[in-house]
């Protein structure tokens, strides 16, 4: 079975190719099946491969070489795939969640124009994402990396009639490309100093050749981190994600929540040895994660648009993953990636039902009372929000977030401050998560609901809701079953975290997350159901309104970048539209013309003038001779 590995990305690539060539001429049902089946098959192959790899394969890795891509001297990157615990988990999440979201899209996109274009792009996305996570070398990874960026661009701007969508799409591609340029330079550096781009070789060689904390290790991992920050929407390259919500909701679920935005997390985990060799960069990862999770959490609290709130939430949750990576808790980060993929996809898809039912209404303050209208979606959303808030015991999000906070506290690189940031983040998370629930589903109905989800949309919601609960049980803390299936498996690919002797304070740490998340739930209930006046009054005070506006706009980063970079660039380009260098040549040509015209004036054809000119000339000549 393992030799079928190449089929996993090849199937969606084929789906894309067929839809791209023949798309427009096919009926909707054929298009839908051509869009969904390749990813479904790919998921099936991935499951079979996974089963064989976990239970029947004697080694911890499997590599498949398809062909040598480029061969110039020692530079021989391949088209080849690498399977280990890390990539297998990524593959499974991408194909299974991808399949569910595509299934949902069959119904969701039914009335939209560009049906086949949508499925073509989505297939290309899944294929690129699989290339990214399966690549055995950084150049192929980069191909997938740019491929997902492209699909993100194409799908954010999917409804191209509105120029605002186009701008959001360009912004997303451009901001991530800033990170990508940094990553490309990182690739140059790695190749020139280590002589290879094969990921496993790089890590072996780096461990031998680079000292811990050496300049080159720091430079290499910092450059890669640049790429990761862009893709994963972390500070300071996070500004594109909220605007990316201009795309269709399934796109937001798949690309901008479940998979692509976590590519940065994957990259860091994949090249973890380089980051381990550069402790300052690793610290930076943790700190960036902590700050991002806090500011994005606060921004999520103030949003009106349900999708923007979810976008900030994604940013914040990816911040948790970065925090985990930064303290060396590799498998905790990947665990949170898995659970987050389930519950955030669920939340987006449920939100999609709401938005479509309310005739493209995004503003949560115009929703309300939907609890009785669409109970199924309501419960799905509740499950998602509970998992996001890490409500204890029954949700997947609890186990992964709890693990991250434990390790942020107890690991060598961790400290109390990081832990505290994560804890405050937990409070924010459950407040904003249940704020969404209460605003959308409770209270009075404000807008008429008219379109219900069809069966292709309901099945994915049900499965994802189930996953959002049970996915956590594969890894439970001591005292709660002490299940370590996930971390045991991950340790075949990623080093385990050395646990420090646990002090008495860990008891507090252990009960902190459940308590705080429940407090957050109550707080949301208090503020948005019982005493909505409090919030209103708070935002009416001068400080409150200022903070509200500031958080709502995502801490003013857009404003800053627009003034510092975008406007000066556009102004400079406009100013030089005529090409200053060209003007120099035009000036030369102009001078030639003018002097030619001037000299032509002397050709009057009048003998008197010529005679006079000759006389003057002779006189000057004589004067020069005599006086000289």
């Amino acid at each position, binding site marked *: 079975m393992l030799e079928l590995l190449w089929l996993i990305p090849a199937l969606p690539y084929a789906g894309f190719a067929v839809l791209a060539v023949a798309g427009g001429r096919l009926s909707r049902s054929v298009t839908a099946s051509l869009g969904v089946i390749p990813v479904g098959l790919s998921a099936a192959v991935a499951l079979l491969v996974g089963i064989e790899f976990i239970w029947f394969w004697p080694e911890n890795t499997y590599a498949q070489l398809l062909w040598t891509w480029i061969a110039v001297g020692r530079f021989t990157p391949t088209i080849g795939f690498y399977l280990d615990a890390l990539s297998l988990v990524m593959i499974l999440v991408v194909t299974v969640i991808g399949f569910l979201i595509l299934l949902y899209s069959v119904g969701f996109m039914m009335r939209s124009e560009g049906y086949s274009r949508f499925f073509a792009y989505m297939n290309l996305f899944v294929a690129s994402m699989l290339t990214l996570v399966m690549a055995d070398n950084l150049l192929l990874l980069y191909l997938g990396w740019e491929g997902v960026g492209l699909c993100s661009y194409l799908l954010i701007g999917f409804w191209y009639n509105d120029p605002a969508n186009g701008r959001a799409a*360009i912004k997303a591609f451009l901001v991530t490309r800033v990170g990508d340029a940094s990553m*490309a330079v990182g690739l140059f550096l790695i190749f020139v100093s280590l002589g290879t781009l094969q990921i496993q070789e790089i890590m072996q060689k780096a461990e031998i050749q680079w000292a811990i904390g050496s300049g080159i290790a720091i430079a290499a991992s910092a450059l890669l981190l640049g790429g990761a920050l862009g893709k994963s929407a972390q500070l300071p390259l996070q500004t594109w994600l909220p605007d990316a919500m201009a795309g269709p909701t399934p796109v937001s679920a798949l690309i901008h929540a479940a998979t692509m935005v976590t590519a940065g997390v994957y990259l860091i985990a994949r090249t973890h040895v380089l980051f381990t060799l550069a402790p300052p960069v690793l610290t930076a990862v943790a700190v960036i994660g902590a700050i991002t999770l806090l500011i994005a959490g606060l921004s999520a609290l103030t949003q009106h648009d349900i999708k923007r709130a979810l976008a900030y939430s994604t940013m914040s949750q990816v911040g948790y993953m970065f925090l985990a990576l930064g303290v060396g808790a590799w498998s905790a980060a990947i665990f949170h990636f898995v659970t987050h993929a389930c519950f955030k996809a669920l939340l987006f898809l449920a939100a999609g039902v709401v938005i479509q039912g309310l005739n493209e209404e995004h503003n949560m303050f115009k929703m309300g009372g939907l609890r009785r209208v669409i109970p199924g979606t309501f419960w799905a959303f509740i499950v998602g929000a509970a998992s996001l808030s890490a409500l204890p015991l029954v949700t997947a999000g609890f186990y992964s977030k709890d693990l991250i906070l434990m390790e942020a506290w107890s690991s060598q690189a961790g400290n109390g401050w990081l832990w505290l940031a994560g804890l405050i983040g937990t409070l924010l998370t459950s407040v904003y998560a249940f704020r969404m629930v209460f605003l959308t589903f409770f209270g009075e109905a404000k807008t008429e609901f008219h379109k219900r989800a069809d069966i292709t949309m309901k099945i994915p919601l049900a499965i994802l809701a189930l996953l959002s609960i049970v996915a956590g049980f594969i890894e439970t803390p001591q005292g709660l079953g002490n299940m370590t299936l996930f971390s045991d498996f991950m340790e075949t690919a990623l080093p385990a975290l050395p646990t420090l002797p646990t002090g008495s304070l860990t008891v507090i740490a252990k009960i902190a997350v459940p308590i705080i998340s429940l407090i957050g739930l109550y707080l949301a209930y208090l503020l948005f159901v019982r005493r909505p006046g409090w919030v209103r009054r708070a935002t009416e005070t001068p400080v409150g309104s200022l903070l509200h506006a500031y958080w709502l706009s995502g801490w003013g980063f857009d404003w800053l970048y627009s003034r510092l970079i975008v406007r000066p660039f556009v102004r400079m380009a406009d100013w030089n539209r005529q090409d200053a260098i060209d003007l120099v040549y035009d000036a030369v040509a102009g001078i030639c013309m003018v002097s030619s015209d001037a000299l032509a004036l002397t050709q009057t054809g009048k003998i008197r003038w010529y005679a006079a000119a000759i006389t003057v000339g002779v006189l000057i000549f004589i004067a020069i001779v005599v006086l000289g």
Partner: protein
Amino acid sequence: MLVWLILIPLVGGVLAWLFDRAGNRWPRWISLFAFGIDLALVLLLWVEHPGEVDLTANRAWFAEIQVPWISSMGITIHLAIDGISLLLVMLSCFLGIMATIASWTEIRERVGLFHFNLTWTVAGIIGVFLSLDLFLFYFFWELMLIPMYFLIALWGHENRSYASVKFFLFTQVGGLAMLLGILGIYFVHGRQTGIYTFDYSELLGTRMSPNTALLLMLSFLAAFLVKLPALPFHAWLPDAHTEAPTGGSVILAGLLLKTGAYGILRFAVPLFPGAALQIAPWAMMVGVIGILYGAVLAFAQTDLKRLVAYTSVSHMGFVLLGIFAWNELALQGVIIQMLCHGISAGALFMLVGSLQERLRTRDTRRMGGLWPVAPRTGGAMLFFALASLGLPGMGNFVGEFLVLLGTYRVSILLTVIAAGGFIVSTVYALWMIQRALYGPNEEGWRIPDLSMREVGAMTAMVLAILWLGLYPRPFIHTAGHGLDQIQKIVRQARADRTIMPPIESARVR
């Protein structure tokens, strides 16, 4: 064989002119046919020589021919082909076909004469890629110039006379400077050895003082840098590309620019290795500035054709950068970049041309919302815009990545700045797509989509770019030997020479 490569288009051109009276179809088919045979010949040669030259025979070339022409002055007809020339000749024939297809419906007046000029330009370009006699090289250099001038001046758009004169003046001044350089090296070599010859292989390794070498090389570079074009000699390009008919733009962007790069690669550096080393840091800097400057200007344009023209300035900056980085990675990157830029810029010009033919405007401010109207045009344009911004999986990425990887070994700073080109190219490419294809269709355009003929041409070009992007090894393999040879020549010459500026050489190595 090599003579045929040049003769077939020449004869084809004459026939096309003669058959003008038989109807407009005849010249088109004749021109297509001529390029087709030529392409078949090159492909045949490629299959015979995928890479290695017969080493036992100790030959440097896949094929070579040398017959005396003007013996008293040491001028011979010396043609030879190695991997580098082979790939470029192949590109020439391929783009010749594309240019003919692009002109199929656009050119309706004096069709015979048009195709005569088109085929003769391409013949001149093929001659440039094959000549090993400097005099012959100069002859072909001029041969490609004059019909190109007529293509712009007679079949161009509104502002054609300005553009064609500008084009002619720039390239002619450069060309004359090169002629002086050719004569210079001819006499220097003649005085030293007593053998007066224009033959490339004889002139290699001519000894001269550093100042003479620098002067002579600069006179060669005058011609090549104008053609490439490098900053600040690019001013002719936007006008010429914009005003030329579509077929002319395809040839200009796809091929004519490559002759400049080829000239530097084959002549300027190997003939004057020391001087090349001396100016390498400056040339690389000019390349990097060109990358960014061209990209920023492309973004500012509102004329779609002018926009594409400025992207050429940007992409050829990578070529200049790579040539003067002068190592295996960078040079292979240069070859791939030349091939891919030829195809992708050619394709973009064809698409813009087809839009202009239908919309009667090139102004992006009047476009918008064309995607649903002409989805095939849109898809092709998106594809080549992405190729242009260097998306991995497409050949342009391979070229640019290799160039930068090679440059990194020489100068980290320049590499980092040039990597900024990735960002600026994203800006102009996406902005172009946004302006032309997306947004509301405010002018209510209703235009026919690409015809089957155009779809065929686009498919061929898309496949070529994907081939170069996903499996460029055959091309790399073919170019490898030729690049080894010129690198060897330069290495030897530099080793022989005692006078060498020590600081720069250390930096470049």
